[in-house]
């Protein structure tokens, strides 16, 4: 087959022009390597975020209602003051609801002797332990009696423990001041570690919400309500019923939008999907640019190369090479070099991704996508950017090229 003979000529031609091969391969490899790394980081981030969500024990049967309009954890306006214990009571009376937990939240400095740290104080009920399924590593969670008595007791996350107590000192039973109130430490939470976005879930202190209302915030309105439905199937109807209750309790007219917002596992997943799509668009942009650069490198070097090899082209034409033979030969060269760049780039990208994965600093996950992408795109780049030089080489008349 003539086409195979041209392929052989192309490969031998590349063997005689190693410097050009090196440059062109490098041009494509850089693009493909960055593509591979970006895909790996994207996949790694996604996987880790999913891990974290699972780790939060945010099961498919639960959802939260946050005061204030907006989306998920992003509040649009000032926090309204009308989410109340009445809302909690009414939602709790719905037949599809298993647990309801009100929550207050306040950012405060916590002080122990000479040490102080800024932390988030959450007023919650003993149900927190059940709903969040966050293990206590030492001591115990407060109970209903503490709620009734408005006891000054606190459960500490790992971050305030680290910031307040010298290593080796047992925080249990110690007295920590928050605002003007001294709280006795009764329990310690298991450490979760920083999330991808840099959020520190361990920087928290839990106190009975009755204590919070009476002694800390001196306000009765809530930051959020956490609801656990009977089963995942009834979540949608429960949310709708909850919406109606809250709208009625808050005296919202039919044309006013909700002054609260739902946070659900599906909502978070959707948000992540959107984030991923945004990242994919970025990815496409970056890879397009880098492949374009690789392509332009190929085109320019091929243009220089055919000029250097104009004599070779002439000789081939003298001894029977058709225009199509010359076109094929040079196209094979550019496609081969480009695919070589794709392979080298993928290998390089995978190595970098593995190193990143090891550092535990940037998440990275190797998937099959970059391989397929690299093969497809690098071949296409060689073809698209090789066609012009190849045709140019073929269109020189043999007479001119041999002079």
């Amino acid at each position, binding site marked *: 087959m003539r086409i195979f*003979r041209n392929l052989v*000529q192309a490969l*031998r031609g590349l063997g*005689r022009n190693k410097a050009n091969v090196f440059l062109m391969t490098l041009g494509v490899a850089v693009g493909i390597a960055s593509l591979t790394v970006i895909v790996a980081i994207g996949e790694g981030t996604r996987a880790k975020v999913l891990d974290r969500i699972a780790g939060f024990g945010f099961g498919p049967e639960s959802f939260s209602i946050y005061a204030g309009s907006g989306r998920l954890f992003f509040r649009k306006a000032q926090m309204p003051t009308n989410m109340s214990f009445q809302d909690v009571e009414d939602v709790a009376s719905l037949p599809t609801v298993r647990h309801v937990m009100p929550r207050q939240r306040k950012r405060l400095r916590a002080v122990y002797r000479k040490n102080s740290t800024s932390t988030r104080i959450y007023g919650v009920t003993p149900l927190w332990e059940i709903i969040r399924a966050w293990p206590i590593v030492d001591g115990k969670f407060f109970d209903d009696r503490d709620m009734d008595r408005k006891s000054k007791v606190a459960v500490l996350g790992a971050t305030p423990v680290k910031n307040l107590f010298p290593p080796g000192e047992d925080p249990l039973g110690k007295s920590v001041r928050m605002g003007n109130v001294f709280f006795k430490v009764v329990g310690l939470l298991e450490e979760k570690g920083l999330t991808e976005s840099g959020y520190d879930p361990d920087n928290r202190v839990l106190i009975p919400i009755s204590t919070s209302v009476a002694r800390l915030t001196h306000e009765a309105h809530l930051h959020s309500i956490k609801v656990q439905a009977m089963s995942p199937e009834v979540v949608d109807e429960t949310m709708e019923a909850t919406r109606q209750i809250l709208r009625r309790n808050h005296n919202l007219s039919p044309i006013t939008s909700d002054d609260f917002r739902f946070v659900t596992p599906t909502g978070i997943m959707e948000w992540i999907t959107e984030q991923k799509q945004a990242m994919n668009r970025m990815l496409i942009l970056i890879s397009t640019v880098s492949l374009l650069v690789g392509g332009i490198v190929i085109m320019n070097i091929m243009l220089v190369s055919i000029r250097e090899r104009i*004599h*070779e082209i*002439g*000789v*081939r*034409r*003298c*001894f*029977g*090479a*058709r*225009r*199509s*033979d010359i076109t094929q030969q040079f196209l094979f060269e550019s496609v081969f070099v480009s695919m070589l760049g794709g392979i080298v780039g993928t290998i390089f990208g995978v190595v970098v991704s593995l190193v990143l994965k090891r550092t535990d600093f940037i998440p990275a996950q190797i998937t099959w996508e970059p391989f397929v992408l690299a093969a497809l795109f690098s071949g296409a780049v060689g073809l698209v950017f090789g066609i012009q030089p190849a045709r140019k080489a073929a269109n020189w*008349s*043999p*007479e001119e090229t*041999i002079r």
Partner: protein
Amino acid sequence: MSLIHLEDVKKSYTSIGMTTEVLKGVTLKISEGEYVAIIGPSGAGKSTLMSIMGCLGRPTSGSYYLDGELVDQMNDKQLSGVRNEKIGFVFQAFHLLAGVSAFDNVYLPLVYCRKTPADARDRVREILAKVGLSERMNHSPGKLSGGEQQRVTIARALVNQPKIVLADEPTGNLDSITGKEIMAIFDRLNAEGNTIILITHDPEVAARAHRTIRIKDGLIESDEKNENFPEFGSGAEGTRA
């Protein structure tokens, strides 16, 4: 029937708006088995004539029949086929592929033939042996002397068994002793029946041919058989054409 038949062939080049007529109406017939020298001063149009005969370029006007076929109207694919099958070129500047072994240089026409013959590699070895290069066929042109390089180009010209060997000043880059060795090869090839057209401005080289065509200013000034070889006598036909 003539192998080559040029009828009032003209060729002009246009560059930067200026048109120069290089061939001003050449009519010429060459038969199979002839040994023809084309001589003339530098710039007379000899190489231009050769590139037309070798189907490297088309005449501006006139017709060219090669082996009975009208070449002027052929497309690139057909012309490439003609160059591959019917013509073997030998150049003054050798025009070998740099960095490619003598063997692969000679093999080149077989890359582009319609169907690579089964015995292609044997053929290459055989032809290299014929020009006395068996020992050096793995050397690239850079490692060969001028005479050896010219032997490689002759082998390359012959490997696909062409109808015509076209040689443009084949001894121009060689010293006189090497030149004589190369000419001896051409003599032998003609004796074996190959048609040879030789461009030169060395009268001694031209004298080895059997017919001499003198070109001047794009026209044939004279066309005569060489007295030394009256027994061939093929020149007469060409003169009257």
